[in-house]
């Protein structure tokens, strides 16, 4: 079955630390890739997405992600986190021309001030 794995369920970092959250998917073929974020008390928001082209994509709030096709990965990065980055982060994937998104279980990120 198709699946998306986020290996870290909880991550705790201090402010200014660098962040990398892992996301791996099990599909073959071409895919669309997404990272969504859910801040405390808020709804899911799109952080960034990859459809095609440059595999390094930049999103809002200084986040970026790199699509590595050979590794079936789409890891999220930020060089220096802030307390306001405390949130839950979800990776999602769909096959091209297929609307169904398959979601990872999410990573809860806590930034200590």
């Amino acid at each position: 079955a198709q699946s998306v794995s986020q290996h870290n369920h909880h991550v705790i970092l201090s402010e200014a630390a660098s962040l990398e959250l892992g996301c791996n998917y099990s599909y073959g073929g071409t895919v669309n890739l997404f990272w969504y974020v859910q801040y405390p008390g808020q709804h899911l928001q799109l952080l960034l997405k990859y459809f095609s082209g440059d595999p390094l994509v930049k999103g809002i709030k200084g986040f970026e992600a790199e699509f590595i096709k050979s590794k079936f990965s789409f890891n999220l990065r930020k060089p220096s986190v802030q307390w306001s980055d405390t949130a839950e982060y979800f990776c999602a994937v769909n096959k091209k021309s297929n609307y169904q998104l398959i979601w990872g279980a999410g990573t809860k990120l806590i930034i200590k001030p």
Partner: protein
Amino acid sequence: GAGVSQSPSNKVTEKGKDVELRCDPISGHTALYWYRQRLGQGLEFLIYFQGNSAPDKSGLPSDRFSAERTGGSVSTLTIQRTQQEDSAVYLCASSLGIDPDTQYFGPGTRLTVL
């Protein structure tokens, strides 16, 4: 502009009762999705509407769950004879219905079945 809205934001019900959850998509979005999110888990696809096409109901967990979309806009998710395992956050998303596409989410309805 206005985003996806959902109502109610919270619903507490007794086991065996029916509930209706409402979703208002972004104006102009032809695609609408319902998801369920249980505590500590990712989103679980329930149903998908695209324009006037027959909905994809493949994610509905049982025949107690149904959804409709009136006039290609507002959607209602109905859960009949609720069970405790139905307790979750129910999320609605909408999108332009193009390929590739991006889904935009509402705030969700937190359903608690006692």
